[in-house]
């Protein structure tokens, strides 16, 4: 059984007991425990079920590389799936549940997949579920989805908050082991700004567990002293619980700080995503131990040797009473020594190397541990827990020689540097045959903005596989990075560390060497994804030669593992199957993040009210108080209509239209763009920007204009007012304000930079309201101040003046066909002016109206709307706007494009009005169909609806549409199929449904 030892536990506070709950049971641990160590201390070795076969799984590792120990953590609004037990710090009241099983962890129905494993090999999805086709959707997929997968999605809204933080440093060091500490010290001493981050709560990495001696003192003391020295450097900052998640172009790095995962009751952001820009990045991310591939290596109780050591030393937990150590290198002997020292039994060290180990092996033998060289584990016995191992010669085929009863196995297949971060941004790797691993190739680093490398790797992560080497390597890296960022490194030597002499490791990719299919199909490469040696061999056999293809076919190293444990072993098996060398097979691509980071952290502050910017006009609050139904227009909120109590949206729109046409309406048009264009060349410039002539506009007058892009398509429209000799005010659509301002600046800065023109976007300087309807003038006259008569201010004129005591600019323009004034006041007075208009207009039943009433009224008048009648493929000629295309001008943006053959094609669909025969409203976007199919086998069409409304004025449906030869086919009836298959018949009419002569607006 696994249990708590009586020793102290390096990271535990034995004074502070912590209660927690796992699968409904209350258990106890100590402050400093991880969930993994606390579960082991309670003999809870079984922690989950595997992805595909639902095999029982226990913890394998002790850190971020753990593939099996994934649990549902927390409840309700703090629920999170796939929390790693090895990186979850224990806290009082923690609630966790194992996942991926039904009905329970101990008894899981899904384990039948295990017995059918032979039927579920690599790629079984692609092979098995092809026929019959319908069965995929209704039978196979639902079943697979129920039995596969990890965890479950949270149901409640996340209760926590998250944030980003932008940080700028000279040198970022990722990984707080002894190499990271030394690199920070060396770089810090050189005077540059350093940030050192460590993903766990503890500094020093493995060195204290592995009994390193540095500068003549125990590793723990050296770490403490170094932290003290770093604390005295004002230019160095260090942070724990902060993982280097990814490295990107030009010195950009993401770091994931976990602020309150370990203390959820503190009112802190849960996670903080650091967006760091560093001059140089050093990764001192250490190395990860590899599993060995022997049959049954996934049975709970089989763990990495280093993890076993960690649990004993750091947490005073013994994973088992009798632990067999199996290895191909000397490092694992440390585990045997630690176990023995803790008073636990080590019945055998199984060393695959014929010649065995070096100094550590001698120590083990001296302690009386039985060491068997040239041997292998043929098979692990046990179901939910290891009961014994069968030992055989490594060279053979797996014939069992000895049965060794045990309840844990500590395995070590060698160490792989953590090269993920180096690789994220293009750092290349080289194969180190001595250690059978990939390590960074210093000659091919990720390149920064200056074309020079900006990432270096030091310590074990760089393949410096001894404490002394690692420290020297880190010291060099720290100094080099500081120098590259303008620092002056001190002439000091790296601290010395004593390393035991190690015998060479031997690559062992299968145990035993000649294992047959039966054994190979129980050798797990990727524990979480249930990929075995036999699966990779099958993939190779079926022609998947590329490692990337094999990864996808078998799912090796996908999802949570990301190649941390499985990568090298999988590559080696693939290489062997392909008769290739490992470096020729290469590795899969390491992608960020290093381990999963929360969606909340990625979103940062952008949630709830500040999920995205919401633009408000000065009447926003008034609208909120008066039944507004909002329409999002870009980031703006515009009133779609204002509902009276109990009124439907449709009824409100109809009422608003009728009231405006009958008497008086009021529209908040503040969102329309207002761009000032000024200068000696402004007229010439606007003649290029607009299709019609703006330079001839007289001061005091307004003109409607069209804008096209250089490829001829309509992009915006609006009324232009000439303010004085060299100043124009250009109105744009709501969505066009920023875009058109940018468009103008682009042409001025990049093409006509010698033209003397300045622009300014004044959109938000003014609140602008349209006072509309037969009584509009009466209202303004009542308020008094300026002459708004037909004579003083005719249609398409503007004037500055006072209205009701407000400083205003009044435009006699109309988008409704009614007598209409658009009145601009400074935005800060917008609300007051709005209130004044409403009060004074009461006697005419003044009716505020929204965008939908505006749409209906403009459609009744046949006015086009950018975005309805246009979609980026429509030219002015399609809309019958030829009158707005100046014939006098040599050039304007879009002119040449409109001469292209497709633009001048008489077959282009053109704008017409459409009136249904039965008075109903045509469906928006409906197509008119004709007999026959096109070359793609689709029904032939001859037109489409671009705008469609019920007109309360005419009391029937009206629409605009683009129709083949439309203007020449007045009176023709078209067929518009609806979604339900029925047909609506509509007659082609003029698009101007209301007051075609403009008598109402021109009064």
């Amino acid at each position, binding site marked *: 059984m696994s249990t708590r030892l009586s020793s102290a536990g390096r990271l535990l506070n034995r004074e502070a007991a912590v209660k927690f709950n796992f699968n409904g049971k209350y258990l106890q641990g100590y402050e400093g425990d991880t969930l993994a160590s606390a579960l082991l201390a309670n003999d809870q070795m079984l922690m989950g079920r595997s992805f595909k076969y639902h095999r029982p799984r226990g913890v394998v590792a002790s850190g971020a590389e753990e593939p099996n120990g994934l649990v549902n953590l927390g409840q309700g609004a703090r629920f999170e799936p796939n929390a790693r037990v090895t990186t979850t710090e224990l806290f009082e009241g923690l609630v966790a549940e194992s996942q991926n099983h039904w009905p329970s962890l101990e008894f899981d129905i899904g384990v039948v997949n295990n017995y059918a494993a032979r039927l579920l090999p690599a790629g079984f999805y692609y092979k098995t579920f092809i026929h019959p086709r319908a069965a995929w959707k209704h039978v196979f997929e639902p079943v697979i989805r129920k039995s596969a997968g990890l965890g479950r999605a949270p149901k409640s809204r996340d209760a926590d908050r998250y944030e980003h933080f*932008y*940080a700028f440093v000279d040198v970022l060091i990722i990984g707080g082991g002894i190499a990271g500490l030394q690199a920070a010290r060396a770089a810090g001493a050189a005077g540059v700004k350093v940030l050192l981050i460590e993903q766990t709560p503890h500094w020093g990495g493995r060195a204290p567990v592995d009994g390193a001696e540095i500068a003549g003192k125990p590793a723990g003391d050296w770490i403490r002293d170094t932290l003290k020295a770093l604390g005295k450097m004002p230019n160095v900052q260090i942070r724990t619980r902060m993982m280097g998640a990814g490295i990107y172009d030009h010195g950009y790095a993401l770091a994931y700080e976990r602020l309150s995962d370990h203390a959820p009751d503190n009112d802190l952001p849960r996670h*903080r995503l650091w967006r760091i820009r560093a001059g140089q990045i050093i990764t001192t991310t250490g190395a990860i131990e590899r599993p060995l591939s022997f049959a049954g290596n996934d049975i709970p109780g089989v763990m990495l040797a280093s993890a076993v050591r960690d649990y004993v030393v750091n947490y005073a937990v013994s994973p088992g009473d009798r632990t067999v150590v199996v290895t191909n290198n000397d490092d694992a002997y440390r585990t045997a020594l630690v176990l023995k020292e803790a008073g636990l039994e080590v019945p055998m060290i199984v060393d695959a190397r014929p010649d065995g180990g070096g100094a550590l092996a001698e120590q083990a033998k001296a302690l009386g541990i039985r060491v068997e060289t040239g041997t292998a584990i043929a098979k692990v016995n046990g179901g939910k827990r290891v009961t014994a191992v069968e030992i055989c010669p490594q060279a053979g085929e797996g014939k069992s020689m000895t049965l060794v009863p045990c309840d844990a196995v500590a395995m070590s297949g060698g160490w792989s540097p953590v090269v993920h971060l180096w690789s994220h941004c293009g750092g290349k790797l080289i194969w180190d045959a001595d250690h059978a691993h990939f390590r960074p190739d210093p000659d091919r680093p990720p390149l920064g903005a200056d074309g020079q490398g900006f990432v270096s790797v030091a310590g074990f992560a760089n393949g410096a596989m001894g404490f002394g080497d690692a420290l020297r390597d880190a010291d060099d890296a720290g100094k080099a990075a500081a120098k590259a960022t303008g620092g002056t490194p001190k002439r000091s030597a790296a601290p010395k560390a004593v390393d035991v002499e190690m015998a060479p490791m031997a690559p062992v990719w299968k145990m035993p060497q000649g294992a047959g299919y039966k054994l190979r199909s129980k050798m797990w490469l990727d524990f979480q994804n249930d990929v075995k040696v036999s699966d990779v061999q099958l993939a190779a056999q079926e022609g998947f030669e590329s490692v990337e293809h094999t990864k996808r076919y078998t799912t090796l190293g996908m999802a949570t593992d990301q190649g941390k444990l499985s990568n090298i072993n999988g590559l080696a098996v693939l290489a062997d199957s392909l008769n290739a060398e490992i470096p020729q097979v290469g590795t899969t691509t390491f992608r960020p993040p290093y381990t999963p980071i929360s969606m909340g952290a990625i979103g940062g502050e952008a949630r709830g009210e500040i999920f995205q910017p*919401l633009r408000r006009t000065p009447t926003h609050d008034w609208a909120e108080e008066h039944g507004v139904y909002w329409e999002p227009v870009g980031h703006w909120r515009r009133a779609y209509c204002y509902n009276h109590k109990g009124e439907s949206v449709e009824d409100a729109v109809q009422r608003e239209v009728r009231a405006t046409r009958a008497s008086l309406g009021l529209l908040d048009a503040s969102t329309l763009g207002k761009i000032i264009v000024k200068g000696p060349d402004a007229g010439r410039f606007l003649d290029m920007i607009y299709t019609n002539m703006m330079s001839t506009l007289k001061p005091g007058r307004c003109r409607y204009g069209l804008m096209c892009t250089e490829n001829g398509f309509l992009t915006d429209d609006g009324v232009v007012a000439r303010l004085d000799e060299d100043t124009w005010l250009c109105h744009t659509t709501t969505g066009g304000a920023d875009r058109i301002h940018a468009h103008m600046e682009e042409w001025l800065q990049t093409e006509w930079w010698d033209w003397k023109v300045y622009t300014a976007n004044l959109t938000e300087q003014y609140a602008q309201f349209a006072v509309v309807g037969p009584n509009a003038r009466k209202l303004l006259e009542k308020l008094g101040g300026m002459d708004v008569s037909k004579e003083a201010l005719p249609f398409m004129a503007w004037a500055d003046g006072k209205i009701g005591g*407000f400083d205003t600019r009044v435009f006699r323009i109309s988008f409704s066909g009614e007598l209409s004034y658009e009145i601009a006041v400074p935005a*800060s*007075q917008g609300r007051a002016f709005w209130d004044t208009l409403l009060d004074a207009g009461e006697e005419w039943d003044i009716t505020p109206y929204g965008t939908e009433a505006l749409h209906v009224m403009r459609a009744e008048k046949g006015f086009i709307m950018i975005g309805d009648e246009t979609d980026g493929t429509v030219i002015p000629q399609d809309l019958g706007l030829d009158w707005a295309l100046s014939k006098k001008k040599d050039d304007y943006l879009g002119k040449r494009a409109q001469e292209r053959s497709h633009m001048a094609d008489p077959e282009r669909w053109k704008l017409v009005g459409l009136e249904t025969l039965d008075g109903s409203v045509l469906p928006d976007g409906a197509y008119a169909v004709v007999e026959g199919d096109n070359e793609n086998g689709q029904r032939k069409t001859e037109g489409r609806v671009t705008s469609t409304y019920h007109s309360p004025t005419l009391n029937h449906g009206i629409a605009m549409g683009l129709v083949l030869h439309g203007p020449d086919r007045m009176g023709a009836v078209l067929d518009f199929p609806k979604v339900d298959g029925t047909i609506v018949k509509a007659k082609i009419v003029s698009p101007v449904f209301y007051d075609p002569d403009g008598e109402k607006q021109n009064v």
Partner: protein
Amino acid sequence: MSDAISALDGARSEGSAVVEELGLRGMITLRGDLSSKTVAAAVKNLTGLNLPQQRMCNSRAAYGVAWMSPDELLVMIPYGEAEAATAKIAGALAKEHALVVNVSDARAVFAIRGAGAREVLAKLAPVDLSKERFEPGQFRRTRLAQVPAAFWLRDPDRFELICFRSVAQYVFDLLKTSAAPGAEVGFL
């Protein structure tokens, strides 16, 4: 004039920094030749301030001049003076190619002050706000979360920030969230 109200009417919040909307401020966009003596004189006459260096903001009492781009300044004055001041500068520059417009109502102005002010902004803007790299007088146009904004260090622990009026509430909520107690980073 008495009816004029700023976007948030002086909203205020206290956390790791004090965030407050500063009410109405007169602001004039001046586009023109910044090397012109006439431009410098017109600005000096009005504000008593010299033209700022690139990416700087000169301030004196209620007056300020900020460098917006190679051909643009932002002149800050009391709100009530803006209309007349705009006309005055425009008049002074009548013979030059220049654009002078009152933008007082198009913007909202905030102060972010206190020891945590740098970090409040550093959670939202991709700018190095360390004491060595962002000093009093420096003016930065950038992105604040999802909207454009500009801020400058008015005093050693007081930033002022301008954004468009329509997003004033969004910006206030951002700053308030960023300054929520307990979220001090301890980095800057």
